[in-house]
């Protein structure tokens, strides 16, 4: 005598079987979450219902420290806001202070800043591009990217003595002038580096497996990208031609010619992971273009303006924006006339990208979550600060 099977095969789910929501934990220690990020994934088999980000594992209270150490003393901490491309963070803080106090930066100082920032951008995009490759299962592009990053580290080390956390900029300019012969060596490096970008393109960008893994994954429309406050390459990947360097000009950027690459949906849908990846590859070329112009046309003069050691700006609040490697970085600083700021708030690109993941992950495969994180180029300290 057989027992009746107590499962109604047509109760739920496309396969006819009742399925149960599964909760998976990803992180905070995970080899492909780009630092300490944690996701609680609610999955139905291989398909995610949603991935809930849990952040704060690298919250180092940088904003509170700013209130304790004063304006000059905060500069080394800005390096650690985004250690992958620290130069632009330096610049953001310096610009916020300069705006509070109304300080004019000498033109050579602005050029030095541009040179340092653009080298930082290349180094950061190299990590991003290489890590995307590694997250998709290809180790080789990562070693190529790290190899080139080492050379850029050498150049920046020559400039400011550090490989990662530069502390190069000062309120009113830069700490040091370019060392003798720097421009010549930097251009020689660019001559060697630029052909290598084509090599990367051949190695991974047009690799069929790689394209299949990224194209059509998690497309973001322009309207959604804007309402989520996605910035930088993530916004441009969705086809919005907006770059703070061009649209809200600062520093010496108006003096240079460069294009703002945007995603075109060349291998799939507009705003998919592949578009965001390709925007970064193209931005590396544009950075090289800016660097050549800056290194050749650098004017003579001092690099730093005279700024009193006890820096006490007038009471007020400023919000400045710089185009960091992960996009529009907003520095909000409030002064009350003393030597210590009342409040510093840093709005970063990764923060917005991380907030978008919960919505973005609905209906994706679990394996694609890694592609989404990599293509949004999320760096943990920027999210948590």
């Amino acid at each position, binding site marked *: 005598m057989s027992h009746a099977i107590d499962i109604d095969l047509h109760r739920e789910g496309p396969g006819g079987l009742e399925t149960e929501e599964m909760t998976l934990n990803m992180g905070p220690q995970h080899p492909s979450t780009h630092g300490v990020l944690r996701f609680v994934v609610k999955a139905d088999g291989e398909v995610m219902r949603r991935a809930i980000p849990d952040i704060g594992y690298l*919250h180092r209270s940088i904003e509170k*420290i700013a209130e304790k150490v004063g304006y000059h003393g905060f500069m080394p901490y800005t390096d650690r806001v985004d250690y992958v491309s620290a130069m632009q963070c330096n610049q953001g803080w310096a610009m916020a202070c300069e705006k509070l106090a109304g300080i004019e930066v000498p033109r050579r100082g602005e050029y030095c800043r541009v040179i340092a920032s653009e080298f930082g951008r290349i180094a950061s995009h190299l990590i991003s591009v290489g890590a995307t490759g590694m997250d998709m299962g290809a180790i080789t592009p990562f070693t190529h990217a*790290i190899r080139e990053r080492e050379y850029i580290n050498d150049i920046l080390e020559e400039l400011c003595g550090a490989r*990662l*956390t530069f502390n190069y900029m000062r309120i009113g300019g830069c700490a040091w002038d370019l060392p003798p012969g720097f421009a010549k060596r930097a251009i020689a490096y660019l001559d060697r580096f630029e052909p290598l970008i084509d090599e990367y393109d051949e190695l991974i960008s047009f690799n069929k497996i790689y394209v299949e893994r990224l194209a059509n994954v998690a497309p973001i429309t322009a309207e959604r990208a804007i309402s989520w406050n996605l910035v930088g390459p993530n916004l441009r990947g969705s086809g919005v031609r907006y770059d703070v360097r061009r649209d809200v000009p600062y520093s010496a950027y108006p003096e240079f010619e460069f294009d703002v690459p945007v995603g075109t949906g060349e291998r799939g849908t507009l705003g998919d992971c592949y578009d965001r990846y390709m925007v970064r590859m193209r931005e590396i070329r544009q950075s090289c273009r800016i660097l050549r112009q800056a290194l050749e046309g650098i004017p003579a003069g001092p690099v730093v303006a005279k700024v009193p050691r006890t820096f006490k700006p007038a009471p007020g609040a400023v919000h400045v924006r710089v185009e960091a490697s992960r996009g529009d970085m907003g520095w909000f600083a409030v002064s009350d006339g003393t030597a210590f700021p009342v409040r510093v708030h840093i709005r970063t690109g990764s923060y917005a990208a991380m907030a978008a993941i919960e919505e973005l992950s609905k209906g994706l495969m679990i394996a694609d979550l890694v592609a989404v994180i990599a293509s949004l180029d999320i760096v943990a300290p920027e999210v948590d600060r």
Partner: protein
Amino acid sequence: MSLINTVPETVVTTKVDDLLNWSRKSSVWYMLFGLACCGIEMMQTGGPRSDLDRFGAVPRATPRVSDLIIVSGTLTLKMALRTKLLYEQMPEPRYSISMGSCANCGGLFQLAYSVCDGVDKVIPIDVYVPGCPPRPEALTEGLLKLQAKIQQERWLVRKPDGAAAA
């Protein structure tokens, strides 16, 4: 009669402890545990220029197969509890390197309210590498120091008080 003349040249005589330690120190697999800034330098130490692979150290993704945990970067209080859990998941014998000022003593972030000032409050540490962040050469030096420490361990001979040396 000398022992050397009785065995062929292909045979090496050594102590069991030395052999064990030599093989252990030559395959120190470290866990990918990049917490903060130092994590990038750790990646570059494993990269093509510094190539930590030369010393038998290759990155592993999970604590279950790792011998070494390199705590590279700022340890926040929220992360400290997880770090302890990860360390406990590693099989014995296990080693730990504290990389960078933040992991050593809190470093720049001693002023912070959310940072654990030193990873040694949570797990035992074998080697401290100073720097903010340490250069790849410094981390390599730290690994060599750890290897020297491993080479001196005694596994078969027990100490007089009965506790295993290690």
